[in-house]
């Protein structure tokens, strides 16, 4: 019993918070001004709590397992959720259904926790759904906006479609191996066509959640339609969680099919980077722009995953940590601007530096981190991914990857150029930034700069993967 409490403590904390919110909602309710700080404190506790009392072990016959790496991954996700709650506080305060929003978000987070801890295809499927369905509802949270409902509709329908395919794949796995336990599947895999088909179907579900080309098409539309809080959650937390479990699935469960998935990753990562970059080039809306940029980033993550060893794991985990800070900083700035002025177009950012130097610098740092330019952590993150991928000595692949960095730099520079260089008759007015938002942005900025330079962070991650 005590094992149960300690091993599942992250899940339990999140569940507790969900229930607390439920009670708040059922009770006479609180004003958003009061409630939001409370939630933020709770989320902070959640983050802090995730670092302590960690123990490795498994429950329910291996259906649920946790290791220090998984605990660390959960910390990253908790941290991201906390940062989102800070960054989007302006928008959140105005929201009519604040507790519901957090309930949904935390349910999704809970789903992700289970997902990365899952040791069984059933748990995996359940948690995947738990982490998806609430997000679809979250996407619809700008109830009045047409785009919001359109995005939510696209998300729920396509994810339902994807889970149909996933389930079909799982059923075939079950049919051919007779088990749904992660630990038993590898022994039963023989690489027969039907298993490959099943694997591909399973693979597409991950690819769908990670927005790998050609399963990415929903991403941009949903990102654009959804409120920024949801978008940032989708792009950071949900992607991170899926990437973590994706690694487990490939490295542990489908280890016997390594040759297959290595090639698959090579093909898909190149396609993802290229298509993501090409689409990002011509975007005008900052959210849509970031959507495609995050698709391109996924291409890089796949490069790291393709390594197939501990270095691959640690580089991916580290990159996602960096990505949390960078992407959230970018979305945070976008949210501040969108909440204050309603402007979401890159053209509106012209001359931003004149009026809002702080926001401009954070945005620039974030974009350069995404582009992988030192001294930002993104540089280290990308480099570790690429060097992990290069270990297989597939240099053509690495050259293509490296060349894609040029294209991605190009479109990040478009935004930087708008902010610093382009002239604008009517730039965005000076925006008063609340303390919480500023704090969050500073945390992100500091994270972007320090994560790479403080080498012990990566060392720590590496020590977890061994």
């Amino acid at each position, binding site marked *: 019993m005590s094992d149960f409490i300690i091993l599942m403590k992250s899940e339990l904390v999140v569940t507790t918070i969900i229930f607390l919110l439920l009670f708040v909602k059922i009770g006479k309710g609180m004003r958003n001004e009061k409630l939001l700080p409370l939630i933020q404190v709770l989320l902070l506790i959640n983050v802090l709590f995730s670092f302590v009392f960690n123990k490795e072990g498994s429950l329910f016959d291996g259906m649920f397992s946790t290791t220090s790496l998984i605990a660390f991954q959960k910390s990253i996700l908790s941290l991201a959720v906390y940062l989102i709650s800070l960054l989007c506080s302006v928008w959140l305060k105005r929201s009519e259904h604040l507790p519901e929003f957090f309930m949904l978000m935390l349910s999704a987070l809970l789903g992700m926790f289970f997902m990365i801890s899952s040791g069984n*295809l*059933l748990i995996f*499927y*359940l948690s995947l*759904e738990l982490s998806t*369905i*609430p997000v*679809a*509802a979250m996407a*619809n949270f700008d*109830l*009045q*906006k*047409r*785009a919001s*409902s*359109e*995005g*939510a*509709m*696209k998300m*729920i*329908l396509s994810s*339902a*479609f994807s*889970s*149909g*395919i996933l*389930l*079909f794949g*799982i*059923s*075939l796995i*079950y*049919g051919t191996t*007779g*088990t*749904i336990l992660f630990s038993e599947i590898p022994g039963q895999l023989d690489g027969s066509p039907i298993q490959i088909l099943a694997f591909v179907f399973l693979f597409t579900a991950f690819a769908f959640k990670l927005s790998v080309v050609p399963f990415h098409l929903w991403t*941009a*539309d949903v990102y*654009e*339609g959804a409120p920024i809080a949801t978008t940032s959650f989708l792009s950071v937390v949900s992607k991170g969680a899926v990437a973590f479990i994706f690694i487990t699935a490939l490295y542990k469960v489908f280890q016997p099919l390594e040759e297959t998935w290595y090639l698959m990753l090579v093909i898909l990562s190149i396609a993802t980077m290229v298509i993501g970059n090409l689409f990002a080039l*011509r975007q005008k809306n900052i959210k849509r722009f970031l959507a495609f940029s995050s698709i391109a980033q996924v291409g890089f993550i796949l490069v790291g995953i393709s390594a197939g060893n501990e270095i691959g794991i640690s580089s991916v985990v580290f990159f996602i940590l960096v990505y949390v800070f960078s992407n959230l900083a970018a979305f945070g700035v976008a949210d501040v601007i969108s909440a204050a002025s309603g402007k979401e177009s890159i053209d509106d950012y012209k001359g931003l530096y004149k009026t809002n130097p702080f926001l401009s610098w954070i945005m620039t740092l974030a974009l350069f981190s995404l582009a992988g330019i030192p001294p930002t952590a993104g540089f280290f993150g990308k480099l570790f991914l690429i060097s992990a991928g290069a270990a297989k000595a597939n240099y053509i692949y690495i050259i293509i990857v490296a060349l894609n960095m040029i294209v991605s730099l190009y479109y990040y520079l478009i935004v930087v150029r708008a902010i610093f260089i382009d002239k604008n008759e009517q730039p965005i007015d000076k925006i008063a930034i609340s303390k919480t938002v500023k704090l969050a942005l500073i945390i992100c900025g500091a994270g972007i700069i320090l994560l790479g330079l403080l080498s012990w962070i990566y060392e720590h991650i590496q020590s977890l993967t061994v």
Partner: protein
Amino acid sequence: MMQPGLYHILFISTALFFIGVYGFLTRKNLVTMLMSIELVLNSVNLNFIAFNKYLWPHKMDGLFFTLFIIAIAAAEAAVAIAIIINLYRSHNSINVENAEELKY
């Protein structure tokens, strides 16, 4: 009379799967599309039951999986219907072709 074997059932379930997919791809009504997804899920259910019964009669994973799929499908449908209703409020239509504003 011939006993239906595993392949018969798999044939039906695969057919059902593709009928569902086809429905999803061609119907314009959002609710109908949702229903097509249900078809896909049901084909999976059939698969699970069949595999359980014919191949792995001692492992009940398939059966449980089916139960959960049914439950989840219900939840998914609930959220989807809610979203569709909301879409109807803003678009005055639940035709998928009217919700194509976010693109390129």
